[in-house]
């Protein structure tokens, strides 16, 4: 499903959550929506899902989404389960809502995921732990099989094994049923391998939209003897560095030219891809007064 956002602005009183944002997603990929707290991620996804009336244009496959029945049928946004479930409802009843109201709902798959995440069907949503509620949100999102599925911080409260089970389930389901999936997360490195394209926003504005691999190639991790690393990185933009004894590792932002590759080889330095998370921090935190 193609997503087109043009001049989108969302305000809460005096606060501008999304400020004249424009971008397009070609669809059928897993997108990472990255941003710091309060950057406007949830507001943006709320507009994409028709939860809020947008000022500007939000179109899915060329159709406006807000109060458009055909377009809204194609979308599922999960913000910590709370929208799709009432705390007094039993988990089994929450799944009934999906089965009753979503044409694309896959109930056997929903039950399979409920078992995978060990969510008790007879418990009320309000009695579940935070991690279980998040897992229930993942169940609702994935079992909806919506052409545009958005998961907003769906890992909250999940323990590590559950998070990994979530990532596996997400990738397996995406391979079997390709669609447009947008995930917002702060655990960037855990999800980095799943993301095909990254959208970074900050202060309600689009900072960057790039293929994840292209973005990674914007920086280099330089590892070797501390003195050699220091010499090599002098004059370059160093995002972060770590030292262990006489070894040092530095994250450098920006491409390297042929001469720098030759010099690195001469110094015996190892060059590797940079962590997405370090790039994100650099792009959303002003360093030396500029991004």
């Amino acid at each position, binding site marked *: 499903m193609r997503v087109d956002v043009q001049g989108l602005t969302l305000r809460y009183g005096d606060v501008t959550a999304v400020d004249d944002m424009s971008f397009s997603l070609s669809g059928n990929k897993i997108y990472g929506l990255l941003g710091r707290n309060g950057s406007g991620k949830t507001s943006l996804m709320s507009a994409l899902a*028709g939860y*809020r009336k947008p000022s500007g244009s939000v179109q899915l496959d060329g159709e406006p989404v807000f109060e458009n029945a055909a377009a*809204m049928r194609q*979308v599922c946004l999960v913000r910590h389960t709370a929208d799709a479930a*009432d705390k007094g409802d039993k988990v089994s009843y929450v799944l009934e809502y999906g089965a009753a109201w*979503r044409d694309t709902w896959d109930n056997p798959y929903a039950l399979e995921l409920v078992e995978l995440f060990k969510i008790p069907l007879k418990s009320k949503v309000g009695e579940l732990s935070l991690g279980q509620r998040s897992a229930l949100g993942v169940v609702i999102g994935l079992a*909806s099989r919506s052409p545009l599925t958005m998961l907003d911080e769906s890992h909250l409260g999940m323990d590590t094994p559950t998070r990994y089970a979530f990532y596996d389930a997400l990738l397996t389901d995406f391979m079997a049923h390709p669609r447009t999936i947008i995930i917002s997360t702060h655990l960037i490195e855990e999800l980095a391998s799943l993301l095909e394209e990254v959208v970074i926003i900050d202060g309600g504005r689009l900072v960057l939209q790039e293929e994840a691999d292209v973005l990674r190639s914007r920086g280099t991790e330089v590892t070797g003897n501390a003195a050699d690393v220091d010499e090599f990185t002098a004059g370059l933009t160093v995002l972060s560095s770590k030292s262990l004894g006489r070894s040092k590792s530095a994250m450098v932002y920006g491409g390297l030219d042929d001469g720098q590759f030759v010099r690195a080889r001469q110094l015996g330095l190892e060059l590797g891809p940079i962590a997405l998370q370090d790039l994100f921090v650099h792009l959303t935190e002003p360093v030396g007064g500029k991004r």
Partner: protein
Amino acid sequence: MKVFRLLTRTLVTFCAVVAACAFVLVIVLTFVVSGFRDVTISGWNVLGSQVARWFLFWAGIYVVHNTLPIAIAHGRTRREFLSAATGFSVVLAVAMSLIVWVGFVVEGGIYSAMGWKADPHGSVVAYFLMFLVWCAVGMFCAAAFDRFGAAGVFSVPVGLMLVMVTTAGIPGAGNLPFVPDLPSLMGAGWHLVSVVAFAGAVLGTWVVARDMPVRVRTL
């Protein structure tokens, strides 16, 4: 139709079960009271004219406050939901007024057998219209509070005016202020005023909720 079917199947069933339990409780209480004093009023009328309308008001609140965001989260539009909720309120009011009417029939039989006296009660149409308007006003107030927060309090006097007209035709439910005789002067024509009140509540709900945002809720 999917929204209407789910609301009707689940909530009407729930409300009917609650009403049936309430009826049993009223009859038991009436027998207990008869041990201390003569029974001179209909316990079911007290429940039907005083308590039931608040129950329908709650049902209206529940539908908009709890179920509308869930419907939107499952890809339904506000327009679809509000149409379904309006239909649901009619079905619920019909079901509850019929239950009240059946309750009066059964209670009347018990009172006759026991030699007790009961005060008069309203017509089934009067109960239907009262329940209908109270449910619709519940939806209107819930939409106003959900959309405008504390400023939703301004919906309360509007809601009060709308529900006030519906109780006039039901003994024990309350009279109109300033013009208490007007309903009896207008006779069955007074029901039209309740229909207008229902239309007003539905229109108000529509105006407030048609582009209402779904806010982040915490559990």
